[in-house]
Structures are given as C-alpha cells and as structure tokens.
C-alpha cells in the first residue's frame, strides 16, 4: 500500500517537471546507445579480423624451427685442456634440414586425436615466379589440396577454376589473385617457378583464389605436394609443416603445448601466431569500455544534478510527508524510484537507439578498394548479451547516481523546514 503511494508521488514528481526528466533520461539514452553501437561495431571488427586471420592461420602449426646453436664448437673438443680458452670467431651455421622427421608416425598419431577435425601436411618453399620478363618473389605451398580445403574452405575462395583441377593435373597451380593480376595470367596460362636451389619447373594455372589478405594473395600459390618435393629434389615423405584444425579453437593453446612435448617440434597456436591482431582486439575492447563508461558517468552526473535540484525544490514536500508519517525509507524510495524510472526509460530507449544506429551502420558500404579487405559493409555484430549488459549498466548508473541525493532527502529535518 505504502509502496504504491510512494510510486504515485514519484510519478507525479517526474511528470511535474517533464523537461528535466527527459533531459536526464536522454543522457542515459545517449550513453547506452553509444555503448551498444561501439560494442556491436568493435566486436564486429574483432570478429571480422579474427575470421580473416583464421582463414589464413591454422589453429595449430607444427614446424621445425631454425635453431642456430653457436655455443658448441668442434674446436673445443680438439683443444680439450682445462688451461685453454677456445674462442671461435664468426662461426657459420651448420647445414640444417628444416623438414619434420618421421612425419608418417606423427600424422598417424595426430589422426587418433579426437579434438582434431583436419590435418594438412605441407612443404613450403620460396620461389621466383617468371612470366615473360616479369620475375616476382613469393612462395608455394605443396599440399594435399583436399586436406588444405578442409582447413581453410578454399573452395569458397576460388574466383576462377577449382581446387579439384589440381588433383587431375600433374602440373597444376592455384595462384593468388593479386599475384595473378601482377603476372597478368589467366586460367590455362603457364608460369615458370625457380626455387632457391636453382631448379625450375613450369606450371599451368588451374585456379585463382582470393583469401582477402593482400600479403597472401600477392605472393602465395598452391601446388601438389609431390611437385614441390620433386622441385626440391626430396623424397615423398619430406614435409616442413603440419597444419591442424581443431573442433574448438579455444583449446589451441593447450593442445599446442601437448604437441611440443610429444613430438619435439615447435608448435604455434593461432593466438600466438597472430598476437598483434589479438592485442589490437584487446585494445578495441578496452576502448569500447572506456568510452562507454565515460559516457555513462557523464549521464550519471546529469542524473545526480537533476535529483539534487529536484530535492532542493521539494524540501517543503519532504517535510510535509514526514510530518504526516512518511518514514525515511519512504522518502528514499520516492526519490530513488524517480532516478530508477529515468534510468530504466533511458536505458530502454538507449537500447532501441543503439540498435537503430548499429543496424544503420551495418548497412553502410565499406569504403575500401576490394583488393585489400573483402568487406562489403561495416562489420557489426548483433548479440543479446550486449543489450542485457547495456540495460544493466544503465540501471546501475542511475541507482548509484540517485542514491546519494535520495539518502540526503530522507535525512532532511522536517522541523527546520516547517518553521520557515
């Protein structure tokens, strides 16, 4: 009963100064709307970059890292004598092979792992692409194309030809779109590759792909694994890398640690391999929260001010209510309710405005030349949890901002005011 009187008093107070109430509400509306817009957009950017990154990075990459250990020299063995210092100046690295030893055993073992959905062994080498007088630096990956497709969904990224063409030709090559246009080649054209060890081979273009990242599309090509082994003069179990796709890529860090222990080869998870992208994601997240919280604090001060003004103008009413038997907690309730109503209405309209703005942004074409990023519209994510967060933030802000003034109102001494 007394709750409903308090509510009706709160409502009357709000309605009797509509303009102020609306201004206070708009503060919250704006804060929440910006929060929704920023988080939807920033998370969209993060998601977009992560997708792009994952379309070029395996969940786990196992490879033989170049180790150049200069701490040991055969000279030390020769002059084995406790009174002698042996100093070797400018040692040269030993001849090292970057391949993974015993790949069949490792691949067989990985196939048993239930967390893995795809494994692609590959042999990568730097090459020069020759087409007429043009000579471009780049690299080729020798792969089993179907395995590679399971990792990166290459089929979806072909803009000409198909991945299957590689299986049916002995000298096929899938070429990056940027590279193709630089070399000015089309399907059916021949390109000549030269390896660092001087071997040369001609390939026929059977497909052109676009990953969406210029630094890949401009330099990379796929050919059959056996072709590269042949080019490098190696046998059929010579591979340099194993790329792995997991069911759940959040487990990559843990799994990659296991592989390092088990096989003794360097094993990078996708987060480590893309730590700069992960860092910029983190920065965007922090930025989102800093800006949103700043806006909400400003909105909170708005409410704090308006509640203080209201209470200052309602001192007499508070004294009368107290004289008639309204207790402190009733007065607290009357004024806290007002700021809660302002906050809730502000937060709700903020969610609507935030949704409208994010939706509008998601329909704005992305102004970039398509060779750099494959993005049609600004990336925006719509997720219920952001909206739940927004309303929670909005209501909390107003509760906190309204609490101190309301508490002061509840402590007003009615006698001092009634005396006049």
């Amino acid at each position, binding site marked *: *009963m007394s709750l409903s009187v308090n509510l009706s008093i709160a409502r009357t*107070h709000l309605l009797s100064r509509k303009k102020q109430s609306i201004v206070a509400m708009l503060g919250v509306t704006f804060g929440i709307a910006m929060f929704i817009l920023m988080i939807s957009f920033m998370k969209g950017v993060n998601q977009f970059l992560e997708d792009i990154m994952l379309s070029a990075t395996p969940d786990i990459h196992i490879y033989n890292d170049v180790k150049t250990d200069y701490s040991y020299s055969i000279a030390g063995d020769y002059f084995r004598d406790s009174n002698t210092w042996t100093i070797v100046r400018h040692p040269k690295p030993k001849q090292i092979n970057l391949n993974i030893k015993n790949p069949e055993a490792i691949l067989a073992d990985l196939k048993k792992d239930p967390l893995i959905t795809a494994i692609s062994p590959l042999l990568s080498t730097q090459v020069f692409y020759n087409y007429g007088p043009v000579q471009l630096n780049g690299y080729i990956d020798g792969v089993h194309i179907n395995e590679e497709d399971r990792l990166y969904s290459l089929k979806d990224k072909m803009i000409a030809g198909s991945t299957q063409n590689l299986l049916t030709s002995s000298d096929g090559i899938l070429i990056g779109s940027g590279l193709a246009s630089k070399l000015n080649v089309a399907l059916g054209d021949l390109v000549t590759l030269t390896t660092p060890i001087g071997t040369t081979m001609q390939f026929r273009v059977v497909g052109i792909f676009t990953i969406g990242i210029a630094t890949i599309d401009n330099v990379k090509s796929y050919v059959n694994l056996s072709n590269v082994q042949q080019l490098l003069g190696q046998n059929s179990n010579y591979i340099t890398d194993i790329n792995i796709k997991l069911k759940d890529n959040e487990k990559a860090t843990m799994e990659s640690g296991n592989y390092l222990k088990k096989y003794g080869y360097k094993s990078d998870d996708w987060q480590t391999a893309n730590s700069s992208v992960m860092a910029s994601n983190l920065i965007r997240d922090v930025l989102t929260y800093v800006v949103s919280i700043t806006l909400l604090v400003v909105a909170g001060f708005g409410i704090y001010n308006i509640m203080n003004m209201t209470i200052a103008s309602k001192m007499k009413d508070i004294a009368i209510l107290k*004289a*008639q*038997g*309204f*207790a402190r907690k*009733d007065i607290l309730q009357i004024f806290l309710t007002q700021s809660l109503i302002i906050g809730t209405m502000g937060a709700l309209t903020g969610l609507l405005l935030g949704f409208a703005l994010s939706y509008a942004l998601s329909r704005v074409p992305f102004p970039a030349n398509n060779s750099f990023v494959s993005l049609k519209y600004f990336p925006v994510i719509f997720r219920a949890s952001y909206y739940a967060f927004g309303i929670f933030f909005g209501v909390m802000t107003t509760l906190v901002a309204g609490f101190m003034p309301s508490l002061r109102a509840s402590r007003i001494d009615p*006698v001092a005011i009634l*005396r006049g």
Partner: protein
Amino acid sequence: MSEILRTENINKFFYEPDPFQVLTNITFRIQQGEFIALVGKSGSGKSTLLYLLSTLDTDYEGKIFIEGHAVTGLSQDSLAKFRNDHIGFVFQFHFLLPEFSALENVMMPALKLGKYKRNEIEERAFEQLKQMQMQDHARKLSSKLSGGQQQRVAIARALINEPAILMADEPTGNLDSANSEIVMEIFEDICKIKGKTIIMVTHDNDFAKRAFRILELVDGKLMI
C-alpha cells in the same frame, strides 16, 4: 475523562547561534476531548513545544506520553508510524503538496497508513472535504486554491486517519478574519461533535478564550 497527553519536565536548548534554553521544566497533562489554546508572546517557545509534542523534534530532555505510549526515545521510523496513526498536524502556512489535487492531498496519509482500500479512502477523504465545505474543489490542484481553502484541505488531511489529537500551529495566522472564523468554527465542531483533543497555538486572544483551557508560555516557562 482519561488522560491523552502528558509531559514530564521538558527542557530544550538551542546551541546555535548562542546556547540558550528555549523551554524550561514544562510539565502538564491534557485530558481527552479538551480544546487547549497555547498562547504566549512571539518567541516564547510555543512552536518549539508543539513540534516536540508532535514527535517531529526528538532533541529534548524530559518525557512525553501520548495515549499511554512513551514516545520519548522511539526510533525515527516508529515515530513516523505513530504520527501517521495518532496525530494530525495543521501548520500556519497550510502546507499542501502543490502537484496533487485537494482530494489526493487528503488521501495521502490514509494511503500511507494502509488501513482501508483505495476507493474507501477516496470516499472518506471526500467526506472529510464535504465537512469543510470543500467538496466542489476536491479535484482542483491544491496550488490553485485560496489560502482559506487550502487551510480547510489541510485540516481535512489532518483528520483523515482519525487521530486522537489534532495539533495546529497558528492555523489562522495567515488568514483574513472571515476565513479565520470558519477555521475556528471547524475546530470547535471537531472537538464538540467528534470528541477530538485539540492543541492550538494562537496569539489571538479572542480565539484563545473560546478554548476550554489556556496554557501560557512566558520565556519558555509555563504559567499556571
């Protein structure tokens, strides 16, 4: 006749701006149904005493009993409840809530008390206003009423919860003589017909004489 209000040795001090004793050894009893006029020169402490009796001011020495309850020392919240139920208060400046209608103002203490349903409360409030000849103005915003009308609404509000005691601090102090007379007549009716106890502060000697009994304060001391 039973005793409805009693004070024992009330002393009150103000410390600002200079320490001084505003009330000294106030001891008296009031019987149920009495109409008391509290008189004295301006500054003699009448309002201060009335605020103590109404439990709004709790900063004093001595004891106050109302309807057998020792109200001295009760918590703020229980005093609020007590006031709501037992005491009606009318101020000199007919304080109404300006954003509410006359009827809503009258209903408010009853809604707070919560003894009756809302529609019953509305009926009772309307009845109270009728007795003050204010039924035609029930739906008007209280800030749109004249001073005399406002004071009658304030009296209706003070009576809505059927308090045993009605306290009024110079209820006619701000009214012209015609309105003052109306208010005085209402008070006399309340006392005679409804048997309410009334404590009224006034500096009008003619009105004071119409009370059963006069308590006079001189420099914070009660003259017998």
